[in-house]
């Protein structure tokens, strides 16, 4: 094995940093590599109305209405609660203190895939970029880094791709979906080369939020290992991508209700059965 290089990392984020995102950034900053943050104010330059029209075209009026209703009636409230829990679990206040003390260089840009973001990334010329938060990266962004652009997908790709993968695993009783993947970003959604997969233990009493928390701790460590692999001059091992693959997007009312009935996972078979199997 060759000597380790000091890489230049770029972390791509959107909006205000949440506790899990700060956890990722601090882990990257704690490594021996140099870190620059590219922080976009918004994920997309497309207006809300246009995005809504596009969704309507993609999923149809019924599914769109179901998603909106699910979000308004249940999703937003759950998200607020989850954010509070992550603040406590990750100790957001102390992470913010540590992040401020680090004074890492941050390039503010308007949108995730916009010209400013492209310029900021090109100028900082990173070896590896990490998508820490935000929407789908376009090729003109993810192709800039010299070695790779990495994503943390909270789901075991390619078995499950898309958003909300851990809750989908609970709703559809698929333990084999629950976990996370460090993968290279390509033109598809969570279809790039998978470098590491991690899965937390499922246990009675777990909810989607405790599972997300433990998964995030594991996947951030896995990300650091992948970056160290790049730094040592060898490409990280690419995992087997064979097997069936399912794509899931935002949930409608029915999955939310299923999740609520299972106490966000506490009373789901997938967690209770772990005590018996």
């Amino acid at each position, binding site marked *: 094995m060759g000597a380790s290089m000091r890489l230049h990392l770029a972390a791509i984020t959107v909006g205000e940093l949440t506790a899990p995102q700060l956890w990722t950034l601090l882990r990257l900053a704690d490594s021996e590599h140099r870190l620059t943050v590219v922080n976009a104010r918004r994920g997309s330059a497309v207006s809300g109305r246009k995005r809504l029209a596009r969704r309507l075209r993609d999923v149809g009026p019924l599914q769109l209405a179901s998603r909106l209703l699910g979000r308004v009636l249940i999703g937003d409230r759950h998200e607020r609660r989850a954010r509070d829990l992550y603040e406590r679990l990750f100790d957001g206040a102390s992470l913010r203190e540590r992040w401020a003390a680090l004074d890492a260089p941050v390039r503010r840009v308007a949108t995730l895939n916009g010209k400013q973001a492209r310029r900021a990334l090109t100028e900082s010329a990173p070896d590896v970029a990490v998508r820490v938060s935000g929407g789908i990266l376009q090729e003109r962004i993810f192709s800039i880094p010299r070695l790779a652009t990495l994503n943390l997908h909270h789901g075991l790709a390619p078995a499950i791709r898309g958003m909300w993968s851990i809750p989908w695993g609970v709703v559809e009783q698929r333990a084999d979906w629950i976990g996370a993947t460090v993968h290279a970003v390509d033109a598809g959604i969570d279809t790039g080369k998978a470098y590491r997969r991690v899965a937390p233990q499922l246990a009675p009493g777990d909810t989607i939020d405790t599972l997300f928390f433990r998964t995030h701790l594991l996947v951030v460590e896995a990300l650091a290992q992948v970056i160290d692999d790049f730094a040592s001059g060898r490409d990280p091992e690419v995992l087997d991508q064979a097997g069936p693959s399912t794509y899931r997007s935002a949930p409608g009312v029915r999955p939310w209700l299923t999740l609520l009935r299972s106490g966000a996972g506490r009373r789901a078979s997938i967690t209770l059965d*772990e005590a*018996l199997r």
Partner: protein
Amino acid sequence: MILIRQLLEWVCRVKRGGLVLNFHTLSAAETRDCVELLACHFDLIGHDELPGRLQRRGKRPFCLLTFDDGKRSNATETAPELERLGVPGVFYVVTDFLSDGSTPLWFDRYAALRRAVPVLPAALDRRVLKLLPHDLREERVRRVCERFGIDAALGDDDVAPMSWQQARGLAERGHTVGAHTQRHAILTTESRERALDEIESSVRTVGEQLGQPCKSFAFPNGNYTAKLALHAVDCGVETVMTTEPTWVDPGSRLWRLPRVQLHADTPRWRHLAKLFVAASGRSLRNPDGTGRIYVDINRRARRARSQATPKGQLPTPPRS
């Protein structure tokens, strides 16, 4: 109090099986009180009698006393009193805690912190801390303790660990010494590999230190999965303890035995009430933080057993 006593008496007359009780520290006087109370209703048994008592019906239900963590007072106060009263106990020790001897367990540090700083940030809420993996929890509590210049008093026998010499003495005098992980990690919050290693190492260390096989394992905080419990069995233990606060009946499996947690500072009538409610098989909250979902789990277990047993055939005896 009299009513609860009579109810418990009645339950004890009709029920088969018994109770496994979980304590942490008891003074000699508390141990005596406790044994006197329990001896009115139960046969107080040792660990090795447990599998047999699950199979056959005794005149009275049984009760097994267990003590978690391996604090020094277990060896200096509790065990001598138990010996005087002729009652064997089971002592679960945290192996690194005993080997190191100079680092208090996280919850003793936390208790010292709570006494000195009544209002702590939300990230230091006890329920939140119990959801963290061990290293993260240790680091978070240690950091705040250092900031305030506070630590648990290792001079206190309810905080300091017993020595391995004392643990060997317990085993020689007829008590059972079991494993309680290496570091008191809540195993379901750890990575799978780490959790399996905690079990294996602690069972091995207890065996090596005692010079005899480790017979029992108890999950810290009670959180378990079947995979972890069966791994403990694969490591050689005969019984695995959780903290599901319910009665041990003939259908109970030796690899996930329920235990009712009692505290020394709780009034007597509450102890009795808790035992009575546990005997009814439901309603108590599991102190491991999972509430009452053990009721659902046990219902599933019963359903699975009845589906696996054809009509007219007796169910298979519990795994031993």
